[in-house]
């Protein structure tokens, strides 16, 4: 088990390194290649050559890309120092540099947006798991009945709906026409749990609906497969109550494959639910990233991409471990 764990850890680290390298390369190399100097992005409107030179020197844009990457990595592990004029500011590890647009330290900036994304992702996750799994199990047990058909049709519709459409539609209906919900504007949980809830309910539902659909389909398929398994028949042959047969023997193995999917989905979401956040104006990581991309604010783009990748890799890791925990065959193999 330990060896297994260590192997996965090493993999994770390597993946992260590659992600940083690729991302860094793309965002700092391509712009240069197509003739737009990062220094210009940094300096923005007014751009007198002297200033550009100054910036390039200060930010080290003149160094070869590898050197820059090195410094960047160093910043993440050890932090780095920036000349800010009168004195030197130390950017503590994990340092992702300073935003071109606002000169804010990137790390705290992103950490500020994290709660939004977290609230959105986790809240939605709870919803969609309950909704999706319940539906899936139900239609698996009622296979071929009307319930099953109805559920699966809805699910198919669900996976076919673009969130940036359902999102708009939802707010058009519930916010503007029925006025059941307030205009979306994120309120921190710490500030006012009630408003936090109302501010997120619509995004949650929209996002959850999409995923629930997928999960319902998945769960159904898995359950049908499991119900056909010999050990389920054995369970019945033992005289166990149907409740126990389904609830303990069938579900346990029927839902295991979902763990993988769930882990990855959640991981991906934690990196910023780009579409949902932008449709609902939630100032989370995804929203931040989009803004940054518009302003070519490289450090932020890079930062978000990194965090996103981190979550995905991390999720992968967790999934592997959970899997090992659930399935002795994996653990003891």
């Amino acid at each position, binding site marked *: 088990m330990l060896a297994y764990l260590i192997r996965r850890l090493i993999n994770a680290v390597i993946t992260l390194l590659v992600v940083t390298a690729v991302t860094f390369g793309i965002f700092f190399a391509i*712009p240069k290649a197509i*003739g*737009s*100097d990062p220094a*210009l*992005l*940094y*300096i*923005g*409107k*007014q*751009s*007198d*050559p*002297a*200033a*550009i030179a*100054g*910036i390039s*020197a*200060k930010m080290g844009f003149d160094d070869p890309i590898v050197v820059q990457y090195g410094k960047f990595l160093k910043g993440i592990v050890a932090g780095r120092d*920036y*000349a*800010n*004029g*009168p*004195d030197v*500011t130390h950017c503590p590890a994990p340092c992702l540099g*300073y935003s071109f*647009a*606002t*000169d*804010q330290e990137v790390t705290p*900036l992103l950490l*500020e947006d994290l709660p939004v994304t977290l609230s959105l992702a986790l809240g939605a996750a709870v919803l969609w798991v309950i909704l999706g799994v319940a539906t899936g199990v139900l239609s698996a047990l009622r296979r071929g009945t009307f319930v099953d058909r109805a559920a699966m049709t809805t699910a198919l519709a669900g996976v076919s709906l673009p969130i*940036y459409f359902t999102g708009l539609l939802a707010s058009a209906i519930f916010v*503007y026409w029925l006025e059941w919900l307030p*205009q*979306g*504007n*994120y309120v921190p949980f710490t500030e006012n749990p009630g408003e936090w809830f109302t501010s997120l309910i619509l995004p949650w539902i929209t996002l959850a609906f999409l995923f629930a659909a997928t999960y319902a389909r998945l769960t159904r398929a898995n359950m049908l497969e499991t119900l056909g398994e010999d050990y389920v028949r054995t369970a019945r042959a033992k005289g166990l109550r149907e409740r126990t047969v389904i609830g303990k023997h069938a579900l346990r193995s029927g839902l295991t494959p979902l763990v993988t999917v769930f882990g990855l989905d959640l991981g991906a979401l934690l990196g910023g639910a780009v*579409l949902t956040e*932008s*449709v609902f*104006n*939630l*100032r989370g990581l995804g*929203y931040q990233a*989009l*803004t940054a*991309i*518009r*302003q*070519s*604010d490289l450090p932020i783009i890079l930062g978000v991409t990194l965090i996103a990748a981190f979550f995905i890799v991390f999720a992968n890791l967790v999934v592997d471990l959970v899997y090992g925990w659930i399935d002795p065959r994996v653990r003891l193999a």
Partner: protein
Amino acid sequence: MARKTRVLAASGVALALGLTTAACGGGSDSDNKGSTSNGKSEFGAAITNVVNPSTTKGGTLNLWSSQDADSWDPARGYYAFVWNLNRLYTRKLVDYAAAPGQAGLKLQPDLAEAEPTISADKLTYTFKLRSGLKWDDGAPITSKDVKYGIERVWATDVISGGPYYLPNVLDQGQNYKGPYKDTAPDKLGLKTVTTPDDSTIVFKLAKPYSDFMYLLAMPGSGPVPQKRDTGAQYGSKPAASGPYMFSEIQPGKAAKWVRNPNWDPASDPIRKALPDAINLTITTNADDLDNRLLSGTADLDVGQTGVQAAARTKLLTDPTLKANADAPNTGFLRFADMTPVAPMDNADCRKAVIYAADPTAIQTARGGEFAGGDIGTSILPPNIAGSDANYDPYNRKQGKAQVDKAKEALAACGKPNGFDVTIAARNNRAAEVKTAEALQASLKVVGINAKIDQYDGATDSAIGGSPEIVKKRGYGIIITGWGADYPTGAGYMQPLADSRFITKNGNFNRSEIKDPAIDKLFDDAAAETDPAKAATIYTEINKKIMEGAYVLPFVVDKALNYRNPRLTNAYVHESFGMLDFQALGVSDGK
């Protein structure tokens, strides 16, 4: 930015100010039916006079914005609303008067106790500071603080993003590197500015420059206490010389001001300082902001770039709401530069484009009469001295494309069947892209095949602003917008039309107008101290530019803004093209 369109509309300032900023604006232009009566609120009333005049102090002013400040550092902010907000905490030697209409364009002594004494040769400006001026921490505001603040403008490697006029006038070959690289012990090594004593500051120019005072009125010319300067980080806690000081700054979320206990009303002829506190909330949801405005839970959108389409409909269809709205000119002109890229190097080909462009289609694409603005007829917007509202050389006001005229022009330029051209628009400016589409469509009618190239708006200065790149990419038409940093013909037109302003990077004379006559006229104007005489010169320059068909004016930019009825002393300030924030108060004292 799924909300691309709205972030734009919302953060209009951002776009507006992408290039340059601090719109001059408003102006008592004919088509706004602002009443001249008793300060009662009507549609457009605040454009020409003070709505709900009052001296009631107290209460909290709830400002909102869908766009964060580019920087609270006076020397780095470049958005119009940020310059306007700077009046709350940054004083300068001179500042714009607190009054509606043309009166607002007058500069009056602020930190200075009186107008400067100007030497006979118009080269030496001597200011005396008022006595008893204090920073928010109680320390005295000295002439050295003023000089230090001005010096920071040179340190572009640290203080990036702000306007860069002063060095052009005051460096005079010293090649000063800014205070951070200053070898002088007191960091006050800039030679052309001297501070004989703590209350005196002297500027020495190389040649007469009639607009010099306007440069001193920019926030970047305000004082900065050297011991509190944190360089690049100064924007996160700027010192306050004005009536309010920051109590909190949350980037991207909020900013809060409270009264500055060390500010003495007696020392400040400009600022009213009515509310006890001022809160600025930054939201990501422009529609939310509009709803709050209309429902009265927010007082004002400091962006002042107009409400969203939904709110616009409500405003214009509901008389009571409409009575609390204004649609002032923002001081921006939306237009297209026609570059020397063939065939645009041919005046007749350029004329063809101007005639073929459908004024109404473009106006509607930009949002129509109120959200877009009036059809533009020349390069000089109505609010700048020397402009003439009736000057319409290409007969655009009538609103139709003039196909026959365009065909004639095409024939004249030797391309009777039209030609191919590339329209460049910034990809992060929805309105400009829409404009480009509309233009493309109307050019097609006369056989001019335009293709639209969207380029990275964030690097505008390196693409649209680089003649070399423009040539390389073959941009014949560049969609842009322009507002002056200070309200004079030179402040507005010189960067656009003076051949000496063409730079390798960050160029704004994108038509690359190289007309010695025009250059000379600018010099004459600079030497001319009588504004009236200068105005006639600017009229002349405007004519020359239009006759050369260098630019295609689209609209004189307007924004439909709503103000909370409880606001007092609401009036549009000419130099910003938006309400004068420092004058506002709240009637209910809450």
